[in-house]
């Protein structure tokens, strides 16, 4: 399975940046795929949830480069499968490490776009015609290789840090502590929707009451 993950990382990077737009690169989907293949679906989805909640707010509109939540979910899920995370302490530690390593990986997107820009300007200056197909092909290959190299390298870094620091983390963290950051994230997420404040509160409360009565 570990060999399958390398081209999978390349395809995720392509789906995120240059091709398909099929949301296979969304954290929840990434973690579900890796979790179901590796046999640790529930813990993978729990981590994917953190990255998805944060990533949904960070839209890649215009030239904005959103943080690479795909990598975060990929690295976390690989960790969850390879070093079975069976407690909240392990899972939260892995989430924090992947959050941090996510940023250097995000910068590679900027690098990729920069190279794309250089290639475009070069061909335009040279006066060549019908160069677009070649540039598109180069861009796809680079996006694929970005995933293959940086996603796997980043995951290895995450695993190294995780194994080094896990000894330092207390094991007595109660399971409900995972709800604390999740609740704040959900509060942050709720600000994202378009609706008046009062309407928002009403809808939210209605949903809560409905759920309280039904489940």
């Amino acid at each position, binding site marked *: 399975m570990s060999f399958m993950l390398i081209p999978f990382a390349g395809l995720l990077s392509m789906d995120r940046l240059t091709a398909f737009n099929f949301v296979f690169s969304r954290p*929840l*989907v990434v973690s579900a795929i890796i979790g179901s293949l590796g046999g640790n679906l529930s813990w993978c989805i729990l981590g994917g*949830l953190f990255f998805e909640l944060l990533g949904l707010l960070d839209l890649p509109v215009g030239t904005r480069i959103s943080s690479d939540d795909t990598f975060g979910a990929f690295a976390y899920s690989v960790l969850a499968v390879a070093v079975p995370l069976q407690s909240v302490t392990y899972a939260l530690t892995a989430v924090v490490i992947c959050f941090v390593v996510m940023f250097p990986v995000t910068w590679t997107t900027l690098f990729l776009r920069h190279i794309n820009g250089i290639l475009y300007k070069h061909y335009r200056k040279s006066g060549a015609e019908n160069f677009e197909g070649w540039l598109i092909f180069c861009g796809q290959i680079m996006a694929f290789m970005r995933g293959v190299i940086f996603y796997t390298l980043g995951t290895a870094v995450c695993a190294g840090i995780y194994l080094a620091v896990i000894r330092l983390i207390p094991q*007595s963290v109660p399971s*409900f502590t995972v709800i604390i950051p999740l609740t704040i994230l959900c509060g942050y997420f709720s600000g994202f929707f*378009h609706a008046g404040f009062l309407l928002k509160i009403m809808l939210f409360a209605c949903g809560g009451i409905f759920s309280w009565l039904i489940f």
Partner: protein
Amino acid sequence: MKSIIDKIIFVVKSLFYQGNFNTENMQGTGFAWLVKPELKKQGVAIPEGDNRQFSEYFNTNPSFITIVAGIFINEYKSGGNAFAAKNLYGAACGALGDSFFWHGLRPLLFLATLFICVHFSLWGVVLYPVGYILPHLILIIMGLKIGSTYGGRTISLFNRLRFNYWADMADKISIFLLGMLIVPLFRSSPADDSLFIVLFGLLFVIGYIMYKFLRPIVFLGLLIALILSTFFIYGGFVI
């Protein structure tokens, strides 16, 4: 048969057109790659002077690319100002797509998926990609026909379909779903201690207020600090 194969090739190409995405011309290279062969297939001659203009700045939402291509081809064939139309409708369709797909549909699907995962089965996760891919592919496949048939009236068509209204409605349903998801989360916290419910309610409001003032990256820093501090509170680091 040949026209069907041509259409399939066009649709498949449109899934890859962002290959050269950059800050110089954004998706301009991909647009040229998509549109120039299509014009040639339809027997439209491209004058020497126009050739370079195809790959100039262009940006839109990826789900709407074939629609903008259709509008452009329509304008180009009829001798209108196709390059101005490309930028105008590219921006308009970009706004429509961002609002519908990224702001409305994606969070709604995420929450609906989560709801199914929490209450029914973890396999509910397939709803997320399926629910997103279907409208995305429908627009991609039908886009060329819609764009070339309606031309400049395409935006009016989407307004008639109340595209923005659905995005707005998706937001409201999402808030309702968020309420449905959060409350059981509170209830699963340490048993019947009502203090915890109040505490989590407070944390939720703090998160909401943070959205108004903090950028995601700053918020992320605070979140990491919060997780690490819970480690300190419940046991302390073993150093």
